[in-house]
């Protein structure tokens, strides 16, 4: 059974992922995504009745840290790869939520 990824879905997914795709990239992405869905789809053959979904593979719960400040000034490392910075701020194109 082949899942068909249409142009609308590719346009939507690329917008969500903030990716600009060329027409030929869209075509190959459509093919790739369809294949991935088919691959994952084989899981539906399993009977999962009464099995609750899991969010990770570790059999552990309640892992905490205590409320302690252990980090010192991290600005140098944080800003190390910044394309543009000023007075320890990242500088980005003006962004105001519409």
């Amino acid at each position, binding site marked *: 059974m082949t899942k068909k990824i249409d142009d609308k879905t590719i346009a939507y997914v690329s917008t*969500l992922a*903030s990716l600009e795709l060329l027409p030929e990239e869209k075509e190959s992405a459509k093919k790739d995504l369809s294949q991935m869905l088919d691959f994952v789809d084989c899981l539906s053959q399993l009977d999962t009745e009464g099995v609750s*979904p899991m*969010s*990770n593979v*570790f059999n*552990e*719960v*309640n*892992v*905490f*840290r*205590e*409320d*302690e*400040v*252990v*980090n010192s*000034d*991290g*600005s140098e*490392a*944080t*800003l190390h790869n910044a394309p543009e910075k*000023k*007075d*320890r*701020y*990242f*500088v*980005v*194109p*003006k*962004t*105001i*939520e*519409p």
Partner: protein
Amino acid sequence: MKEYEIVIGLEVHVELATKSKIFCGCSTAFGGAPNSHTCPVCTGMPGSLPVLNKKVVEYAMAVGLATNCAISPQTKFDRKNYFYPDNPQDYQISQLYLPICRDGFVEIDVEGKKKVGIHEIHMEEDAGKLIHDETKDCSYVDYNRAGVPLIEIVSKPDMRSAKEVIAYLEKLRILIQYLGVSDCKLQEGSMRADVNLSVRLRGETEYGTRTEMKNLSSFKAITRAVDYESKRQIALLESGQVVEQETRRWDDEKGASFTMRSKEDAQDYRYFPEPDLLPLLIDHAWIETIKAKQPEFRDEKIKRYQTEYQIPEYDILILTENKHTADIFEATVALGANPKKVSNWIMGEALRLLKESEKDAKDLCLTPAHLAKLIELVDKRVINNTTAKEVFEVMFHEDVDPEKYVREHGLKMEMEDGQLEDMIRQVIEDNPQSVEDYRNGKKKAMGFLVGQTMKATKGKADPAAINRILSELLDN
């Protein structure tokens, strides 16, 4: 015109007062240099691994219990995906599927008591801060707030007016302040409220289409925004149009709200379970430990004060508005001081000085033993009221021992009656006109003579004693 009913639900974000961030050991302190409180975890560097701050869970549970919620036995985190420069990971770690608290309520009192339901409370992380350059086409990003723990309290659509909204927020603010888990300041952003509002004809059982309003940074702004938005929606319906489901931004300067994004542009957050964090199981024993640590809340305190202390209702309301002032009051009274006198000092002088120095009630530094001693000094007439106020001001700023301070600064009323009488005789001799006025029935002249005597004694005499001796000398 037809009669409309306003329906309001609130999403309230509260910044928790932990020392470190929710998933890393960076400081949550205000005022650090830009990006100084950051690390690979809170800036979402590849390969970094978040670990949950236990205190955040306990604070969220405490707020849940205080608002009558059920604590979820199993809870976990989810990723909410979106792109915005204040969000370094390109996702926010939040809770969608299994929030930590559900189905609570708080009671408000606006023209009668009513319950406002709480749909859920969930834990999440705050975003960074953007500063927009006024002149250049760029913004500056500081991630110090990114990863600071928040809880979001989602109410049910149970409020019907701006007054109820304010009462609900006040209720939450005081509960949370009593718990000490946040300072809940709307102006400073440690408490933020988004208002979901719709209107419907009175008697209608279905809800109308709602809008969500953001950027409300004061109670006044909320009141104005509720008024504006309900009128806007009613006008639309009255003219045969429909209300669009959308997110609107309140502009307090313009006194109006504007569309931020409509339902069509609503973001698809693609929530999915956060794979880097393990699930939480909260057992009965843990809930009981948190329950045992809950303080006596304001409503209970008010009831107890009404029976335990002989002070007016007005005093009770003011004293209990902040847990810290209530604590100081109780501790001072426990040392044997008269409740009304303690209340007067806290409500009068302490609150006046707090306001004057632009400090918060929680920063009031007043040792109960010192306050009790000050009251005793006045009761025993060691100092008079005027001196006591001066001493109190020093106590307020420097937390000094009033007894020691009075001794060291020679503020004690040292006038023995004999010595005082001599000085009063001198004042009478120096002011024959006033004495004659007094004897001719101008009782006001007495005040002048008392003032002159106070001046002569440099304030070290007991006004009651001056009055007594002066009357004796003048009337005989």
